[in-house]
Every structure is written in structure tokens, then in C-alpha cells.
């Protein structure tokens, strides 16, 4: 492989990654950055659990606790879970639909850098006077009252990274609509690509309300607007609505791709096609649609009135139906199959009871009158960690093991993988199961401590112990990654042996142009069909020809950097710092200058010639 496998120096590799527009490399960037933020968020979780292990603890102070709590939620949702999911969407979806590239490689890179700089900006708050402390929901009255720059970091950081997510979503949508391989109809698309599609659509419609909410909050905090100032006619409920109109779809943005990953794993390791494929597709779309109709279930105790509460309660319950359809389809995919318990399959199997437990408590929460008791207690904390950790994090961990060979060309160690799994599973249930009861016994959430004698001691201790199991599990995973990367045993196209979809029909990692010739797709599970017909690979849909590829570019990095700089200017401008306004203008100039450069300099990309491709084949055959 002439162009791909060349050894490069560190500087060259770094430059390569800073300028890359290749979706597979961007996937790796997302994986690294998301993984890093997962560790940060996890460390914050550990601090939370240490503080709450015993009553009246003073491991951290009250104010600091609120910062840790806020940053834990914000980091995990926006900077860990979403980017990790984006990593898999980037790495796998184009391969699954048989595309050479995504629709907008440049925009794809820009999306990553915006997320990255937004995340860095947010976390710099720790070193620049304090992190945001109004909860990840940042409800307006408290957020506007919050002193210092913490909440400003939240507003600006999320604004920048949210914009990255939005354009990333558009890119995936266009890729799926326009760039499917010949024969890859919508109803032949693997479920992970389907969930990518629906998730991207949710992103497209859910992020604008967040953007508006953040803009209003920014105007209030930095430019003297009065949206949330009640004495000036403002209204804080506006923020809550905007946040949750975004926030509820957001949780499905997280869970649907995880569902997608599991929908790949169950058929693979059961050697059986997905049970009820079309109803799975239908359920995915339905969940996405209903996801926009239920946001006010987070606001049952706001006093919106019984009519609104009743409507939103019933609408929320309805989501249980399509989700149930999925659960049973997965179970019946395994039914009658030939189930092999690889590490990814462990996660997939454990996901079912864990997620169902979290899902049904969700339906309990949906019962508005009863939610007056659950709301803002540890019962809710238990609910959402059951769905998020038992669903999203399990999905991410499963995906990591499953797609690692495809992304890096080497397998993670299975034994260590299973150790990670068991430790994490035990720790997870230990931590969060008992929290249901804490909530019911009367423990509110977001408390930095609790007084002795209320019956919360034992349960909190158990919960904290569980968190450490998860920490050890994560450390084993890190060791696994290091050890296997050092050994670097190369693997072939289909290292699991049970691959069903297109990504397993090409080398691991794939060449930078993915498919030498676009494959002809003859049905669902295209690669499996060919294998069952006794063929070794896909039948090409086109003769070998030149391939058009995009050029690398440093501009995405610069555009994001510009906004990062400008954000500092906007923030310190309220302190009457003389340099703030110039900094703001300078940052915006960098961004708009880069955009200008991009639009005036034609970029036609380049072509890989037929001859080089043939040479590649020969070398590949020899290697």
C-alpha cells in the first residue's frame, strides 16, 4: 500500500492529523479526544462519589462540588459520549454504505476542530477562575446569578462545540442520502447507518434551539440583555423550554447510535440476520420523531398546569413502545442463532437487562403525578445512568472492541476485554441500583453533602464503592490498548470472522480511498450474502478507474482556533479589559479570514490514477 503504510516521523504524522480531511483519521481524532474527555468526566464522577461516600464529608467544598457536578454532566454528554459516537459514525458509516468518502470532508474536519476547541475552552475554566456551577442544565435564574466566568465558559464553549456537531450532522445526512453504493437502497442499509441518519436528523433540528438558548444567555450575561431578568419583563422558563427542546432529543442522539452498534453486534455474533429489520428501521424513525414531542417531562414540577403535564406524560410513555419493539427484536435475533460470546457480545447481552431497567424507570418518571416525587432526586440520577451507562457507554465500549481492528488494524486482547467488562458491569450496578432507593427515601440530587441520621449513609457508601470498580475497569481497558498497540499484530479484512456488512469486506484499516471499485450491493448484509455464495469479496459495480480525492487543509483548524480566541475576547470584555475587544475582533478575523481563503481559493482535490491503484493491489497481495 504505497501511500498509506509508509512510516512517518512524529512531526509529519501530527501535521497529517492537523490537516486531514479523511473521515477515518477524523474518526481517530474523535476517539482520542472523546476518550480523553471521558477520562476527565470519569475522574470528576470519582470525585463526586468520594465526596458523597460519607455524610458531612469535606473532600471538596460546596462551591467546588457544584463545579465538579456541572462539568461532569457537561463533559460526559457533550465532550465524551457524543464525540465517541461521532468517532464510530465517521469510521464506519461511510464504509457501511460503500462510499469512498463523506460528502463534505472539509466540513467534517471543521466539525471536529470546533468540537475540540469548544471542549478545551470549557475545560480551561478550571484554570481561569472556576468552572461553571449551575448544573449541566444551567437553569437561567441560577446561571444568570452565578458569579465569575464559569457560566460564560459553558455558554461559549458549548456554542462552539455545538456548531461543530451541527455541521457534522449535516455532513452525515448528505453522505447517506447522496453517496450510497450502487444497489444500497435505504432498506438495505445496515442499522448503524440508519441510526446515524436519524441521529443526524435529530442533531439538525435539536441543536438550533440550544444555539438560541445559549445566545440569549450570552446576551444576558455578557451584553446586558434582559431575557431572563424577571424584573425587566424577562422569563426564565424560556431557557428551560429551549434547553429541553434540545435536551430530550439529545438523549436519543446519544442512545440511537448505541442501538445501532448493538444491532450490528447481535446479528454478527449470532450468525443470523437481524430479526424484523424493517420494524427496527421504523422504530428508530419513530423514536426520533416522538423525541421532539416530550421535552416538558423534564418540567413536570414547573407548574405548567395539569393539561400540559398530562399531554406530555402520555406522549412520553408512548416512546416505550418502539423501544420495546427493538428490545424484543434483538432478543429474537439471538433466538435460534449461534451465539458466540466475544467481548462486544458481552456488552450487547448485558445491555439488554440494564437498559430495560433504565427504560422502565423512565416510564415511571413519565407518570407526571408520581414524578413530583421522583423529580430532582437520586431516582432520576439512577434512571439516567442506567440508560446512559447501561446503554450509551456499553455501546461505546462494545463499539471500541468491535471496530478497533477496523480502525487500527489490530485486535484488542479478548481476555482483558472480558475483565474490563465484568468489572464495569458489577461496578455499574453497584453504583446506580441503590440510587433508586436513595431517591425514594428522600435524597435530592445535586447535593454536595447530606446530614447523618437520615438513613442515607450505607447506600451512598455502596454506591461509591461501585464507582471504583468502574475506574479499575477503565484502567484495564487503557492497559489493554497500550499492550495491544505495542504488540501490533496485524489482522485481515474480517477479523471477527462473522462480518456481515461492507466494512468487513475491505482491509483493516482500509486504504484512504476505501473502495478501489465501488461494490455492488445485492441485499441486506451485503458481504454476508457474498460469503454465503462462496465468494471471497464484493462484486465491483464499476470498472477500475481514477478516483477523485479531496486535498488536506489546515483551514478547519484555523477557523476553529479563531472562534476559540474570539470567545476569550467576548468573555473578558465584561471586565473592561482593554485587550478584550481587540482579541474578539482578531479571533473573528482569523475565522472569517480562513473562510474567505476557503472560498476564494479553488480546491479541486486530486486524482488517484488507475495505474497506482493497480500497483496497490499487487503490493497488497504480496504483503
Amino acid at each position, binding site marked *: 500500500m504505497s501511500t498509506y503504510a509508509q512510516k512517518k516521523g512524529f512531526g509529519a504524522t501530527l501535521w497529517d492529523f492537523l490537516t486531514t480531511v479523511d473521515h477515518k483519521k477524523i474518526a481517530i481524532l474523535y476517539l482520542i479526544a472523546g476518550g480523553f474527555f471521558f477520562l476527565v468526566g470519569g475522574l470528576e464522577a470519582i470525585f463526586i462519589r468520594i465526596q458523597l461516600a460519607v455524610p458531612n464529608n469535606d473532600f471538596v467544598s460546596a462551591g467546588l462540588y457544584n463545579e465538579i457536578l456541572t462539568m461532569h454532566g457537561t463533559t460526559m454528554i457533550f465532550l465524551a459520549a457524543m464525540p465517541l459516537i461521532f468517532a464510530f459514525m465517521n469510521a464506519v458509516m461511510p464504509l457501511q454504505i460503500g462510499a469512498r468518502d463523506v460528502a463534505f470532508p472539509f466540513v467534517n474536519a471543521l466539525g471536529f476542530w470546533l468540537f475540540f476547541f469548544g471542549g478545551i475552552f470549557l475545560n480551561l475554566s478550571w484554570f481561569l477562575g472556576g468552572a461553571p456551577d449551575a448544573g449541566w442544565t444551567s437553569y437561567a435564574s441560577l446561571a444568570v446569578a452565578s458569579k465569575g466566568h464559569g457560566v460564560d465558559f459553558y455558554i461559549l464553549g458549548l456554542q462552539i462545540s455545538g456548531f461543530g456537531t451541527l455541521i457534522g450532522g449535516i455532513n452525515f445526512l448528505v453522505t447517506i442520502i447522496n*453517496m450510497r453504493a450502487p444497489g444500497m437502497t435505504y432498506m438495505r442499509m445496515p442499522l448503524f447507518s440508519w441510526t446515524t441518519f436519524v441521529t443526524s436528523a435529530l442533531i439538525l433540528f435539536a441543536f438550533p434551539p440550544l444555539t438560541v438558548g445559549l445566545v440569549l444567555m450570552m446576551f444576558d450575561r455578557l451584553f446586558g440583555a434582559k431575557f431572563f431578568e424577571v424584573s425587566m419583563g424577562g422569563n426564565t422558563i424560556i431557557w428551560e*423550554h429551549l434547553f429541553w427542546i434540545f435536551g430530550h432529543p439529545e438523549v436519543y442522539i446519544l442512545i440511537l447510535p448505541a442501538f445501532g452498534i448493538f444491532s450490528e453486534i447481535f446479528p454478527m455474533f449470532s450468525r443470523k440476520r437481524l430479526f424484523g429489520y424493517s420494524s427496527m428501521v421504523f422504530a428508530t424513525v419513530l423514536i426520533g420523531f416522538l423525541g421532539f414531542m416530550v421535552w416538558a417531562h423534564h418540567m413536570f414540577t414547573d407548574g405548567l398546569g395539569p393539561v400540559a403535564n398530562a399531554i406530555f406524560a402520555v406522549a412520553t410513555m408512548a416512546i416505550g413502545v418502539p423501544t420495546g419493539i427493538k428490545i424484543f427484536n434483538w432478543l429474537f435475533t439471538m433466538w435460534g442463532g449461534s451465539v458466540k460470546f466475544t467481548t462486544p457480545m458481552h456488552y450487547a447481552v448485558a445491555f439488554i437487562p440494564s437498559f430495560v431497567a433504565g427504560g422502565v424507570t423512565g416510564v415511571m418518571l413519565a407518570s407526571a403525578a408520581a414524578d413530583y416525587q421522583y423529580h430532582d432526586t437520586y431516582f432520576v440520577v439512577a434512571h439516567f445512568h442506567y440508560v446512559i451507562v447501561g446503554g450509551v457507554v456499553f455501546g461505546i465500549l462494545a463499539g471500541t472492541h468491535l471496530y478497533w481492528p477496523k480502525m487500527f488494524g489490530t485486535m484488542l486482547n479478548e481476555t482483558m476485554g472480558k475483565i474490563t467488562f465484568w468489572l464495569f458491569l458489577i461496578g455499574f450496578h453497584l453504583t446506580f441500583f441503590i440510587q433508586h432507593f436513595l431517591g425514594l427515601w428522600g435524597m435530592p440530587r445535586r447535593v454536595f453533602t447530606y446530614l447523618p441520621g437520615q438513613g442515607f449513609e450505607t447506600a451512598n457508601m455502596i454506591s461509591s464503592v461501585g464507582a471504583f470498580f468502574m475506574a479499575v475497569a477503565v484502567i484495564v481497558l487503557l492497559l489493554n490498548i497500550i499492550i495491544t498497540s505495542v504488540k501490533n499484530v496485524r489482522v485481515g479484512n474480517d477479523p471477527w470472522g462473522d462480518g456481515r456488512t461492507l466494512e468487513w469486506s475491505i482491509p483493516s484499516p482500509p486504504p484512504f480511498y476505501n473502495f478501489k471499485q465501488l461494490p455492488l450491493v445485492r441485499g441486506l448484509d451485503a458481504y454476508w450474502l457474498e460469503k454465503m455464495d462462496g465468494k471471497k469479496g464484493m462484486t465491483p459495480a464499476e470498472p477500475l478507474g481514477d478516483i477523485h480525492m479531496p486535498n488536506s487543509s489546515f483551514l478547519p483548524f484555523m477557523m476553529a482556533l479563531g472562534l476559540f480566541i474570539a470567545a476569550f475576547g467576548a468573555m473578558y470584555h465584561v471586565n473592561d479589559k482593554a485587550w478584550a475587544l481587540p482579541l474578539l475582533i482578531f479571533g473573528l478575523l482569523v475565522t472569517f479570514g480562513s473562510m474567505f481563503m476557503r472560498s476564494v481559493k479553488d480546491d479541486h482535490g486530486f486524482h488517484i490514477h488507475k495505474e497506482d491503484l493497480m500497483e496497490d493491489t499487487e503490493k497488497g497481495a504480496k504483503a
Partner: protein
Amino acid sequence: MTNQEINSGNPRVDIEYRRKKSAEEMRYQIVSFSLMIFLTLIAFAAVGIKGFTAWFTVPFIILLAVVQVIFQLYYFMHMSHKGHEAPSLFLYSGLLVGLITILAFSTIIWW
């Protein structure tokens, strides 16, 4: 995925046909522009002329706006042409989400 040739074998015939098509479309567009201006005039008149109640005027001018926007979308932005299935799907989905938002904000923000 390279594109199929859209033109027929004989470029001249094709060009003639296309010219005629675009000229025809241009006529539609001018008509719809005139209608848009006309609708705008009515809307402003409905507000400018005293004597209508708000209960009549508000729904009426909103209706005029909706009609006018449909002209914009279907004639100026060519949504009536084929190949706009995905754009319409997403535009209408966005519209749906937006309308629900507006409905919520005019009912359950209080007052």
C-alpha cells in the same frame, strides 16, 4: 457516482426545449412575484385601515404570509421541481419542530 448525461443526443433541440421551459418558468415566477406583492399590499392594508378587529386581522395576515411563503418556496426556490424530496422532507420536519416550539411558547410560558 457519476452523473448520467441529462441532455439528449442533439444539443440544439435540447437547448431550444430548455430555453422554452425556462422562459415559461420565468413567466410563472413573475406572476408569483406579482401575487406576492399583491398579498403584501393586502396585508398592510388590512392593518392600515382601521375598523377591523384584531380577531380578524391577525389570522388573516398570517394566512397571507403563509400563502406568500409557499410561492417563495415552490417557485423561487424550485421546490416544485423533482429532486426536492429530501429538501422538502427536512424543511417540513424543521417547520413542524418550529411550530411546536412556537405553540409551546405561546401557551405554557404563562400569562
